[in-house]
C-alpha cells in the first residue's frame, strides 16, 4: 500500500484536485444563475439556463488546462528545476499526455451537457416567440427591446424563424457549431487505432485545435445570455413585479419595463495565457529546429537499424532523453521521436533508428543505406533536431540499486545509461551513487542483438579489466526462436561464450520469471529503494508494476518508472 502511494499517490492527488475544481465550478455557476438577476431569464428557460452555464464555466477551466501538458519545452524546463526539490513531482510531469487525454474527455463531456442544455434553451426561446399571447409572461418578455434592439431578453427576435436558422445567424451559434465539429474531428482522429496506425492523420487533424480556440474565444461575443441590468433590478424587482407584467410601464404602475443586457465575454481571460505559452512553445521548437545539425557518422546495423551520429552546437543531453528528428528532404512537416543512445560524456549524440515505416525507409535511403559504397559526407541529408526532452530514465542514478527492463527496441534508452555509468566510473573515478545494475533485455529475435551486443561486450571487457565484473548483471531473454536455432543452442550449451551474443553471460530463453527475479533482488539488497525502469509494451508494464507493488515490503521498496512516447 505504501509503495502504491509512492508510485501513484501524487497522480491520484492531482486528479482529485482537478475533479474537485471541476465539480466546484459546475455547482458554483449553477447556483450563480439561480440569482434574481436571471429571474426573468429563468421564466423563459427554467433550469436549462443553469444547466448550460455550469458546464460552460467548467469548459473555460478545462480549455485553459488542455494546452499546458503539451508544451514540451516548458515541461522539460520545469522538470529540470523541480528535480532538485522533489523527484516525485518531476516524475509526475512525465504523465502529461495522460492528463491531456483526461482533460480532453472532460471537455467532451461538458460540451455534451452544454449543447443539450442549449437545445432546450433554443426551444424555449422559440416557444416564447411562437405563443403570441399578451397574457403570457414569456411573450411579454420576448417583446421587450423591440424598439431599441438593445435591451431585449430573448435573442430570438421574431416568430418567423426556427432554431436552426437562429443558430446559423448568431455568433454564438456559428462558433458553437464550428468548434464542436472541430472537437469531434479531433476526437475521432485521436482514437488509439488511428493514432498508432496513421500518425499523420492524427497530427494534422489535431491542428483543428486552432479553430477550436479561436471559435471558443469569440463564442461569447454575441452576448446572447442576458440578465437584468443592475439599474433595472433596482426599479423592477422581479419578486414583486413579475405578477404584474401586464401593467409594466403603464401609468400608476410601480414596475417599469425591465431591461436586459448580456455579460461581456469571459473565456479569453481563461485561455489567453495558455495560448500565448503554446505559441511560445511552437516558436521555441521552430527556433531549435533551425539550428544546424551535422551527421558525423552513419552506421548500418544488420538488424535493419540505422545509427546516426550527429553534432549540434550547444547541444547538451542527459541520459535516456529523446529528440525529435526532422528531415526536410523527406517531409517538411514530420517530426519523429527517437531515444538518444549516446552518453552525455561523448562528444557526439546518436540515435538508433529502426526501419519500420516509409519515413524511416526514406531516411535509410537518403543516408545511402541501399548503396554499397560509402556515402560522401556532403551527400548526407540535412537534419533538424528538436529537444532533447526528458523522460524517467534521468532518475536512474538516484537509486542505489536499479533494475532496467527493455523489450526489443525499447532497450535504446538503456544503451545511453549503461554507457554513461561506465564513463562516470572511469573518468576521475567519480563516486557514482548507483552501486548495482540489473539489466533485462527481452527480444523476440536474434538479429536485433547485434549493435547492443557489441556495446555489452565492450562494457563486459572493460569491467573485467577494472575488476568490477559484478557491477552490472545482465540477462538477455530470447522470447522466440526457430527450431533450427534451438538445435544449435542445445549443442553449444556448454560453450564458454554465448553462441548468439558472444557474451560471457548466457542468453536465456523464454520470458523471465519476474517473481523470482524480484524476490532475489529484494533478498540481496534489504533496506534500499530499488528503481525499476521499463521501456516496453504496456502489458509488460502492468505486470512489472504489480510485481513492484507486491514485492515492496518494509525494508525494500520497488519504485516503478515507465518510459512512454
Amino acid at each position, binding site marked *: 500500500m505504501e509503495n502504491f502511494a509512492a508510485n501513484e499517490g501524487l497522480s491520484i492527488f492531482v486528479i482529485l484536485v482537478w475533479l474537485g475544481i471541476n465539480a466546484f465550478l459546475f455547482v458554483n455557476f449553477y447556483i450563480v444563475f439561480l440569482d434574481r438577476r436571471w429571474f426573468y431569464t429563468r421564466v423563459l428557460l427554467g433550469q436549462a439556463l443553469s444547466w448550460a452555464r455550469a458546464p460552460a464555466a467548467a469548459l473555460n477551466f478545462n480549455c485553459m488546462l488542455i494546452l499546458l501538458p503539451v508544451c514540451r519545452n516548458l515541461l522539460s524546463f520545469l522538470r529540470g528545476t523541480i528535480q532538485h526539490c522533489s523527484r516525485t513531482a518531476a516524475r509526475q510531469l512525465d504523465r502529461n499526455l495522460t492528463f491531456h487525454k483526461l482533460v480532453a474527455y472532460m471537455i467532451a463531456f461538458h460540451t*455534451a451537457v452544454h*449543447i*443539450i442544455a442549449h*437545445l*432546450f434553451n*433554443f*426551444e424555449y426561446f*422559440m416557444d416564447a416567440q411562437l405563443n403570441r399571447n399578451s397574457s403570457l409572461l414569456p411573450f411579454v418578455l420576448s417583446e421587450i427591446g423591440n424598439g431599441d434592439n438593445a435591451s431585449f431578453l430573448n435573442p430570438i427576435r421574431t416568430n418567423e424563424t*426556427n*432554431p*436552426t436558422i437562429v*443558430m446559423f445567424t448568431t455568433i454564438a451559434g456559428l462558433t458553437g*457549431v464550428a468548434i*464542436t*465539429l472541430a472537437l*469531434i*474531428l479531433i*476526437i*475521432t*482522429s485521436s*482514437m488509439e*487505432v*488511428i493514432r498508432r*496506425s*496513421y*500518425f*499523420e*492523420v492524427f497530427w494534422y487533424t489535431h491542428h483543428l485545435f486552432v479553430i477550436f480556440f479561436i471559435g471558443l474565444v469569440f463564442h461569447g461575443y454575441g452576448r446572447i445570455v442576458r440578465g437584468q441590468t443592475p439599474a433595472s433590478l433596482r426599479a423592477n424587482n422581479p419578486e414583486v413585479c413579475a405578477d404584474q407584467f401586464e401593467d409594466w410601464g403603464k401609468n400608476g404602475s410601480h414596475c417599469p419595463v425591465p431591461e436586459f443586457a448580456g455579460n461581456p465575454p469571459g473565456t479569453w481571460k481563461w485561455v489567453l495565457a495558455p495560448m500565448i505559452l503554446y505559441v511560445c512553445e511552437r516558436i521555441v521548437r521552430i527556433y531549435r529546429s533551425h539550428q544546424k545539425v551535422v551527421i558525423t557518422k552513419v552506421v548500418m546495423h544488420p538488424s535493419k537499424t540505422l545509427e546516426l551520429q550527429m553534432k549540434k552546437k550547444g547541444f547538451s543531453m542527459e541520459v535516456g532523453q529523446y529528440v525529435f528528428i526532422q528531415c526536410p528532404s523527406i517531409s517538411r512537416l514530420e517530426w519523429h521521436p527517437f531515444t538518444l543512445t549516446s552518453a552525455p560524456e561523448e562528444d557526439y549524440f546518436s540515435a538508433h533508428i529502426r526501419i*519500420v*515505416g*516509409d*519515413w524511416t525507409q526514406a531516411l535509410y535511403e537518403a543516408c545511402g543505406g541501399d548503396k554499397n559504397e560509402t556515402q560522401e559526407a556532403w551527400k548526407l541529408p540535412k537534419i533538424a533536431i528538436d529537444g532533447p526532452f526528458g523522460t524517467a530514465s534521468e532518475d536512474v542514478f538516484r537509486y542505489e540499486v536499479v533494475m532496467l527492463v527493455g523489450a526489443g527496441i525499447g532497450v535504446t534508452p538503456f544503451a545511453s545509461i549503461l554507457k554513461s555509468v561506465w564513463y562516470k566510473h572511469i573518468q576521475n573515478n567519480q563516486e557514482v551513487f548507483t552501486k548495482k545494475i540489473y539489466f533485462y533485455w527481452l527480444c523476440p529475435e536474434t538479429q536485433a542483438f547485434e549493435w547492443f551486443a557489441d556495446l555489452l561486450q565492450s562494457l563486459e571487457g572493460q569491467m573485467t579489466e577494472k575488476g568490477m565484473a559484478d557491477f552490472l548483471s545482465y540477462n538477455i531473454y530470447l522470447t522466440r526462436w526457430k527450431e533450427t536455432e534451438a538445435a544449435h543452442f542445445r*549443442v*553449444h550449451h*556448454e*560453450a564458454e561464450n554465448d553462441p548468439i551474443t558472444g557474451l560471457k553471460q548466457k542468453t536465456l530463453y523464454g520470458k523471465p520469471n519476474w517473481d523470482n527475479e524480484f524476490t532475489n533482488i529484494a533478498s540481496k539488497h534489504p533496506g534500499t529503494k530499488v528503481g525499476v525502469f521499463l521501456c516496453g509494451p504496456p502489458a509488460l508494464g502492468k505486470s512489472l508494476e504489480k510485481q513492484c507493488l507486491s514485492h515492496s515490503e518494509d525494508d525494500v521498496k520497488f519504485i516503478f518508472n515507465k518510459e512512454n512516447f
Partner: protein
Amino acid sequence: MGKIEWAMWANEQALASGLILLTGGIVGVAGQFRGWQFAAYAVAAGVFVCLLEYPRSKRSKGTSVERTGQYCFTVCVKTFGPLTRNYYVRAFLHAAICVPGGFMLATVLGCVCLGIASLIYLAAAIRGEHWEPILPRKAETRKPPESIKKPPQNPPPRPPPEMRKKRVDDLEGAAYDNPIDVTANE
C-alpha cells in the same frame, strides 16, 4: 506506419456521428421539441448507423483490432454482401441518411458529422478500399506425417559410459564425433 486507410477514420467518425444523432434524437423526442418527428427519425437512423459501423473492417495491411463483441455484428453486416462491402454505397447511404437530420436543431450536429463521415468514406472508396469482415481464423490442424506417430520402442544404440565422456576442449568437433565407427549401408 504505411499508407493511410481512410476507411478506418471514416468508421470512427461515422460511429461517433451515429451516437450524436441518437443523442440529439432522444433529446428532441424527450423534450417534445417542435419537429420531434425528425428527432424520432434520428433515433432510428442513429441506431442503424451505429449497428452498421460497429464492426471494424479488416485492414489490408497490418493487424486489425476488433471492437469488443463485434463478432455478431460482423456476421450481420457480412450478409448484405456488396451493399456493405462497397464504400461508395456507404458514402451515399450516409449522405442520404444525414439529410433529414438537418431539419431540426437537435439533430443538426449529427447530420453534419455524418456528412463528414460520408465524405471520408467517399475518399476511401475512390482509393479502392472495401470492407472486409474480421473472422476468427480456424485453427489449422496439421496432421503429423505417419513416421512421427509411432515413438521409438528401443533406446538408441550407445557406447559404454567411458567412451561417452565429452571432449570439453573441442565441443564443436565433439558433436560430430561418433565413438563407434559407423559405416554407410553398402
